[in-house]
């Protein structure tokens, strides 16, 4: 349990680099080629040979998007409780499952919230980590998202939510369902404050999260390769007893059915966010010098 001591699990991006050092090479699952790990990381966790997207942890995602050195973890120091005293088939209580996830990920929870700048513009980030019990939404995620909204309002920052989640945290029962209500209710505060809410859906964004806060963005982006939908493919297949369309619940499907504003490649997400934030700049707290600069630079181009 050594991990508990570290500043209550605060994420510090500088420490990320070291973790990969165990082996230098990895095999791409898609093309089978051996690729240099460092090269993959520099390439936004995309295979340099075939373009396959590898999984991004929440800290990696944050690193990918924010201005270097600007990120500060402001997660509320809370962790999951076990309201139902839930025990799964392996006889393991929910609380152990949570501890295991904490040890494996080095994170306190399935979501990190932080203050950062993106292209100089002030944002509050809320980023899910799918490794942590499927990034599912329990009471902690609900509360952290509400906290993120409150910070955004206090600091006049944009809210950027990055979803990577299988939905609600079953093990918290009805209380996980109620987080759909809790987060959707809080979302109004951003509207009242005229602050933009940008929702980014990645692989996967489904069920309880998709059917609440993630679908309430002013602007909604799908990361290329995203899976977006309410009900899982397997359940639908069982119900309708038919094959599903090839592109069912893909990024393209979501775009064609009017569910997302744009599909954005991972390597362009940061630039896309800067483009959007720039339009809302007058509503945000004073942007740093970088923003002004970046703005001018691009205005000339």
């Amino acid at each position: 349990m050594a991990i508990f001591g570290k500043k209550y699990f605060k994420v510090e991006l500088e420490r990320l680099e070291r973790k990969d050092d165990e082996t230098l090479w990895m095999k791409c699952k898609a093309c089978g080629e051996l690729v240099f790990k460092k090269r993959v990381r520099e390439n936004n966790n995309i295979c340099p040979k075939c373009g396959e997207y590898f999984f991004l942890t929440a800290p990696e995602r944050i690193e990918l998007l924010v201005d270097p050195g600007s990120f500060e973890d402001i997660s509320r120091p809370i962790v999951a409780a076990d309201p139902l005293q839930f025990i799964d088939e392996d006889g393991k209580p929910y609380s152990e499952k949570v501890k295991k996830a904490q040890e494996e990920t080095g994170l306190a929870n399935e979501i990190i919230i932080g203050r950062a700048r993106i292209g100089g513009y002030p944002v509050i980030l809320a980023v899910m980590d799918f490794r942590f019990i499927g990034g599912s939404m329990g009471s902690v995620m609900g509360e952290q998202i509400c906290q993120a909204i409150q910070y955004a309002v206090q600091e006049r920052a944009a809210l950027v939510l990055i979803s990577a989640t299988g939905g609600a945290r079953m093990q918290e029962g009805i209380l996980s369902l109620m987080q759909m209500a809790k987060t959707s209710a809080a979302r109004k505060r951003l509207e009242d404050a005229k602050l933009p809410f940008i929702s980014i859906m990645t692989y996967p964004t489904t069920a309880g999260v998709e059917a609440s806060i993630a679908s309430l963005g002013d602007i909604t982006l799908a990361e290329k390769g995203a899976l977006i939908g309410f009900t899982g493919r397997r359940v639908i297949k069982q119900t309708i007893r038919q094959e599903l369309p090839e592109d069912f619940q893909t990024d393209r499907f979501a775009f064609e059915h009017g569910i997302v504003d744009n599909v954005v490649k991972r390597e362009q997400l940061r630039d896309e966010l800067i483009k959007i934030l720039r339009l809302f700049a007058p509503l945000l707290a004073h942007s740093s010098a970088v923003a002004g600069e970046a703005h001018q630079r691009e205005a000339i181009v």
Partner: protein
Amino acid sequence: MIYEELQRQIEQLRALSRNGVDLSEEIARLEAKLAALKRQTATPAPSPAPSPELDDWERVKLARHPKRPYALDYIQALTEDFYELHGDRLYGDDAAVVAGIARFDGQTVVIVGTQKGRDATENVRRNFGMPHPEGYRKALRVMKLGERFGFPILTLIDTPGAYPGVGAEERNIGGALAQNIYELFNLKVPIIATIIGEGGSGGAIALAIGDRVLMLENAIYSVITPEGCAAILFRDASKAPEAARALKLTAPHLLRLGVIDEIVPEPPGGAHLDPEMALCALKSAWQRHLREVLALPVDVLQKQRREKFHKMGLYEEITESSFS
């Protein structure tokens, strides 16, 4: 008596109003106060008769009992002049959702509910009470109509969940549910939600945001069906009874968890054995709660509604002393 005095004052303001002064707000506030006063002297809420605690899985079976009263049964028995409205004005109508205007307790109300079928033919038409996006959009349209006229809203929830189908996903079922939840918080009229049978996950909560959330004694309300939970977590769908117990999806549990406000008592053995009694119990609960929420000014109502749901959830604080 103090409230006769208040009544007189209100009438005087009304008379003034007729002469062109806008005092509607003041009048509304006084009326709220008056109602609150009257409420204090009224009979208190009946504490639900502590019927023998049934096993959770037994309750699941009761909640799904094919003879259990459905939404339209409550509507027909408890309201007068129900006028059903149809269509979302965007794509279609959805018989898994019923929505309309009616009179309840002398007051025009909007009622929206999910509706199961009583036989095979009706179940095909009602899709076993599993709505498509157009059902939720119809519901929202009609609830907004209620808001426009100041009619309070009653919702009746009895659904296995939103329909898991290709068309539903194509028409953004997740977005429809999210939109309903969001908009329900913003509605300027009182909302009383009642789980009368199955409260199935996102498809249920999209109609169950209210100033009061009531639940029938043998109803269930859950993030996932016991079968689904068993299949995913226990890797064995036949373990549904265990999952049902693990999920704490019955009314007594939910009351303890702070998710519902009141349990509406059912006759022993379930509402289907003596529907009259169940109907009667819901009627009196509606009357009592409706009177209370109608007495509140809109801003207070909305604030309380938000706060009510904001409090839901359970987590633990980490403090330095947690680690030693």
